[in-house]
């Protein structure tokens, strides 16, 4: 099957004309007011559609369209290509804010930004990818990822499918158990073996664009949470020019960018979901407090307690985001390659994915039956269901085992 070229209700041609006219000559003022703008989009678009997106397990077309209108799909693209050139630390905060309004939209945005970071960090030496980054800015293209594969047990450093290269052309077919928003993406970054006779771990990363691939669904996406990410499985068949192969081996892209950026932006949006749960608990308590002015409700003690956990979660995310940003600023990819940094990155994922469940659960106890209901403004149903996704997307047991292995070699503490 081929995918539709635009979302219903989102006139991209018109949007592009508008934004071309309005694009500021310098992006610095935009960066300064960016979070305010993201909150505004969150309140006026994401929050409005979040429940319907969740209920129907549908792609949040209105929300992604709003992010496109604000040119946020190129937020991480360097300014020389027309992007906002955000740092990872700034990007992390954007994901946190989006998470406060719609977990699925925030997750889609975070996953898109991971792919943008892969190209930005590892492909600018190629004229094809420099051109691609400009197109991404102008067309606000949405990038998806096809890294996991049926038969590899979730091991990203192992591929079964292979690129078959003949002259300047390649073709490949991948059985992907999950391609989040695969039906809606403009481009997909696919990992595969570099040749049919290569080992499972000899991998390339290839960009395939709409029109160059077909994706036949092999599974649905009817899940507990993050329902709007529409992460169905597909048989992906693609072909293209060898220029579309990223000029850096996949193992380096994974360890230096995909792994750290994923866990930073995911933990950021989980923080946002957790923060909104705490905000709902606070709102509930304020209603209670108004009934007995001058007296703090007993359950507010739980608010004080959960606030501590939320602070720990956010500081954990910020700590690793800053550490990674320092490695990027120092142009020290080897630092991101080391076991120490990889272990700390995994620890962030493990810790954040458990804390989000803890925080939303505590908020639920504060809101009581009002939080348990689906039809209450204090409902925490979506937050709770989304929060359990954190531990199973890249399973925590697998990550813990990886850390256990690396800790056999790694000796120094941080």
């Amino acid at each position, binding site marked *: 099957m081929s995918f539709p070229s635009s979302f219903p209700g989102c006139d991209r041609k018109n949007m592009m004309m508008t934004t071309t006219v309005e694009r500021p000559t310098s992006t610095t003022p935009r960066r300064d007011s960016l979070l305010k703008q993201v909150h505004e989009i969150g309140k006026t678009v994401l929050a409005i559609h979040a429940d319907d997106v969740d209920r129907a397990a549908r792609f949040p077309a209105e929300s992604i369209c709003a992010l496109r209108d604000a040119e946020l799909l190129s937020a991480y693209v360097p300014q020389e290509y027309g992007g906002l050139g955000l740092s990872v630390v700034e990007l992390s905060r954007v994901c946190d804010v989006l998470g406060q309004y719609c977990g699925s939209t925030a997750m889609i945005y975070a996953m898109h930004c991971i792919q943008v970071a892969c190209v930005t960090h590892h492909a600018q030496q190629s004229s094809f990818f420099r051109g691609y980054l400009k197109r991404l800015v102008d067309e606000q293209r949405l990038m998806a990822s096809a890294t996991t594969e049926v038969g590899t047990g979730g091991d990203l*450093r192992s591929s079964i499918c292979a690129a078959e290269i003949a002259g300047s052309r390649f073709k490949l077919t991948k059985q992907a158990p999950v391609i989040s928003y695969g039906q809606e993406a403009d481009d997909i970054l696919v990992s595969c073996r570099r040749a049919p006779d*290569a*080992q*499972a*771990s*000899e991998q390339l990363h290839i960009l395939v664009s709409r029109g160059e691939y077909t994706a036949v669904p092999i599974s649905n996406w009817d899940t507990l949470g993050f329902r709007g990410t529409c992460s169905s499985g597909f048989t992906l068949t693609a072909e293209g020019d060898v220029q579309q192969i990223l000029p850096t*081996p996949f*193992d380096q892209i994974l*360890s230096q960018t995909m792994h750290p950026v994923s866990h930073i932006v995911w933990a950021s949006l989980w923080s946002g979901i957790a923060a909104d749960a705490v905000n709902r608990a606070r709102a509930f308590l304020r209603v209670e407090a108004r009934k007995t002015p001058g007296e703090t409700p007993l359950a507010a003690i739980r608010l004080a307690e959960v606030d501590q956990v939320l602070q720990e979660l956010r500081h954990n995310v910020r700590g690793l985001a800053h550490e990674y940003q320092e490695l990027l600023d120092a142009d020290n990819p*080897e630092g991101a*390659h*080391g*076991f120490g940094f*990889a272990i700390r990155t995994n620890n962030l994922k493990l810790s954040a994915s458990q804390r989000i469940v803890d925080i939303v659960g505590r908020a639920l106890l504060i809101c009581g039956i009002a939080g348990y209901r689906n039809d209450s403004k204090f409902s925490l149903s979506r937050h709770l269901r989304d929060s359990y996704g954190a531990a199973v997307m890249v399973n925590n047991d697998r990550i813990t085992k*990886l850390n256990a*292995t*690396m800790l*056999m*070699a*790694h*000796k*120094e503490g941080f």
Partner: protein
Amino acid sequence: MSQSIGSPAVDVGVIREVIAQHARLGRDLVDADDVLDLYSVGLTSLATVGVMLALEDRFDLEFPESMLGRDTFRSIANIQEAIQSLLA
């Protein structure tokens, strides 16, 4: 061990054996060049842990944290050089 005190010549055969057993490359490197980039033929950073532990066992040494970078295990020649410096 093949080397003796004062003559830290590292037995490359042992290194090749360790790589064959622990590097999980899925291919025979018996005739491979000593400077072949092992990462280019599929060595993963996780597999280097097994290689490192086996080398520590076989050569009765311990790699300090500072040597646990990607370059140390990049090739047979690099491993040999690293071990040589630890035995010197």
